[in-house]
């Protein structure tokens, strides 16, 4: 590979980040995928589109989210100065809504009258149901039957918001199967329907489009850190399922060589057990859901189940741009087990009065390992991408507490 002077130019016109990405979809969908790309390119150039998105982000979502100095955690760990990017304070409780608003505005622009989405933990489903209620668009959310069982509050929330939640029983009845069924719905309703994908994956232009909508996280962080400390952060840490919150935080800093970035995958019961969701640490490149990326799969190319206590990280793939950033070495990718995440979940609740979602609890567990090794003037930002209300039941059960 030749030396590059930017990590932020991707993808190419065919949607490739190095060998990753692409448009691996059924022919029925191809004209629509091309149409979405064209519409998105036009919207990007239209100042009124960005202005409308910004208005909703400020007045409806509550952005900018604070960059908060976690003093007690910093003192406890005794190393880097730890900041939380507080995206859990967004309306609906996670970063997902940043992207959903952008795509819903695009769907409206394209004249699509119906929206579908897939969801794992339910956060993307709730965000989609929320924005569809706001914009008065009929909404169908596909959710694995297994996930419906472990995320009941979010299922009810989506129904309250007027969405139809369709249980997915095919395959392993989790996020990947929900995505399969959403794609099947899309193929059958290609004229009327816009598919709001919840992460930086899927066929081009989705990985780039979702990234762009999530970059508000990193752009705000950059400006806030400048105000608070007068310089760039040194270390960024974020959890990775599909990887949208991490991409949103990392991307604006990719061309700053002084900024170290750590993406944290879910190691489930441990990488050596095979029961995990760490596609980059324990998988290999393959093609699924419209893109080439790292996947958990067997020697016959069959996709394997992911395992994680966090339904939001329980996906056997990862966004193609992360796959590329891994191969180039620009971003480090580590993995945190269920047990380590649970410990971080409890520590953060007690020290900072913030109950984190299980997804950022993985990032937090990595911070617990990394921060003590860093000097006190190292500015570390962890993306608190979701709040833990939805996980209280799962954690209680794990800790043997009857509610």
């Amino acid at each position, binding site marked *: 590979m030749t030396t590059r002077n930017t990590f932020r130019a991707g993808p190419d016109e065919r949607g490739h980040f190095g060998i990753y990405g692409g448009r691996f979809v059924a022919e029925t969908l191809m004209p629509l995928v091309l149409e979405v790309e064209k519409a998105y390119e036009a919207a990007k150039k239209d100042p009124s589109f960005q202005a409308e998105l910004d208005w909703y982000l400020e007045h409806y979502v509550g952005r900018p989210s604070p960059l908060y100095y976690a003093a007690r955690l910093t003192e406890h760990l005794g190393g880097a100065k730890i900041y939380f990017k507080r995206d859990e304070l967004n309306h609906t409780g996670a970063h997902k809504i940043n992207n959903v608003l952008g795509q819903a505005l695009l769907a409206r622009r394209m004249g699509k009258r119906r929206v579908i989405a897939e969801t794992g933990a339910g956060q993307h489903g709730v965000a989609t149901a929320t924005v569809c209620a706001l914009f008065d668009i009929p909404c169908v959310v596909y959710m694995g039957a297994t996930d419906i069982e472990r995320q009941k509050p979010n299922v009810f929330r989506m129904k309250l918001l007027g969405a139809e939640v369709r249980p997915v029983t095919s395959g392993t009845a989790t996020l990947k199967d929900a995505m399969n069924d959403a794609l099947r719905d899309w193929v059958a309703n290609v004229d009327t329907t816009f598919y709001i994908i919840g992460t930086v994956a899927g066929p081009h232009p989705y990985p780039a489009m979702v990234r762009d909508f999530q970059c508000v996280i990193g752009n705000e962080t950059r400006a806030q850190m400048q105000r608070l400390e007068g310089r760039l952060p040194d270390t960024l840490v974020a959890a990775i399922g599909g990887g949208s919150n991490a991409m949103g935080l990392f991307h604006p800093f990719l061309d700053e060589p002084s900024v170290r970035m750590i993406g944290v995958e879910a190691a489930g019961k441990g990488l050596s057990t095979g029961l995990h969701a760490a596609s980059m640490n324990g998988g290999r490149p*393959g093609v699924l859901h419209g893109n080439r990326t790292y996947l958990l*799969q067997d020697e016959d190319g069959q996709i394997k189940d992911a395992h994680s206590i966090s339904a939001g990280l329980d996906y056997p793939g990862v966004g193609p741009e992360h796959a590329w950033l891994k191969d180039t070495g620009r971003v480090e990718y580590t993995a945190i087990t269920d047990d380590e995440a649970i410990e971080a979940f409890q520590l953060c609740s007690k020290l900072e009065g913030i109950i984190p979602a299980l997804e950022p609890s993985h990032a937090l567990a990595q911070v617990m390992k990394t921060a003590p090794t860093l000097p006190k003037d190292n500015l570390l930002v962890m993306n608190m991408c979701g709040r833990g209300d939805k996980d209280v039941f799962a954690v209680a059960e794990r800790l043997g507490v009857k509610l």
Partner: protein
Amino acid sequence: MTGRIARRFAALKEEGRAGLVTYLMAGDPDIPTFAKIFEALPEAGADLIELGMMFSDPMADGPAIQAAGLRAQKAGITLRKTIGLVRDFRTRDDTTPIVLMGYYNPIYIYGVEAFVRDAKAAGIDGLIIVDLPPEEDEELAKPALKGGLDWIRLATPTSDDKRLPVVLRDASGFVYYVSIAGITGTKSASVEAVAEAMTRLRRHTTLPVAVGFGIKTPEQAAEVARLADAAVVGSALVQKIADTAAKGGDVAAAVLADVRALAAGVRKARR
């Protein structure tokens, strides 16, 4: 280059009739039963055979073919074994065209170069890969064509006059018209819609056109056979395997009886 596919369509033209294309998932319901059905398909009236390559996440398939894939996976099918089934078939039948249909990832993991070589050597004639649109031709379409395999394109109701030339560029063997916007084994297209699509397709290609998705009965097959060069039946046969196996019946006999009835329907519809 005239392969088995071209020769078969030429022979059908000579006979003045359309062909019957059958789709079954390789290894469904188990490998020995499947081998028995596979071997008997030409005698039962299948003019061209499509073999499904099992994949864990078949995003364009409906419940019947999803379930067939799970049965085949449980029975221990792999891509290597699927190719082996064709190799065995070829020891007895060197004329019936065989096309593999499925998704890209198992082939990508097998290795494109090795796959093309092994498929060709086993006597496989062509490929239909659902998740490889023309935009991804570098992946497999070009190596397959270079390796002597036909690359069968999918045209759909969303393929308009602007899209069709892109879709049909480098098509070979035949064109597979997916007659509905949707997944396998669900809706059926109307005769009028198929007729209109055929007129449009014929403007863009001289290749034979096979029509599939939603054809379940001999009557429907006959209607399509009047318009197209071949009718493809998949989910209905796959569902018969599931139903017969569930009742503990003779799966091979049941599915072959259906193939005979479909073949009779197609043959009746002389053009």
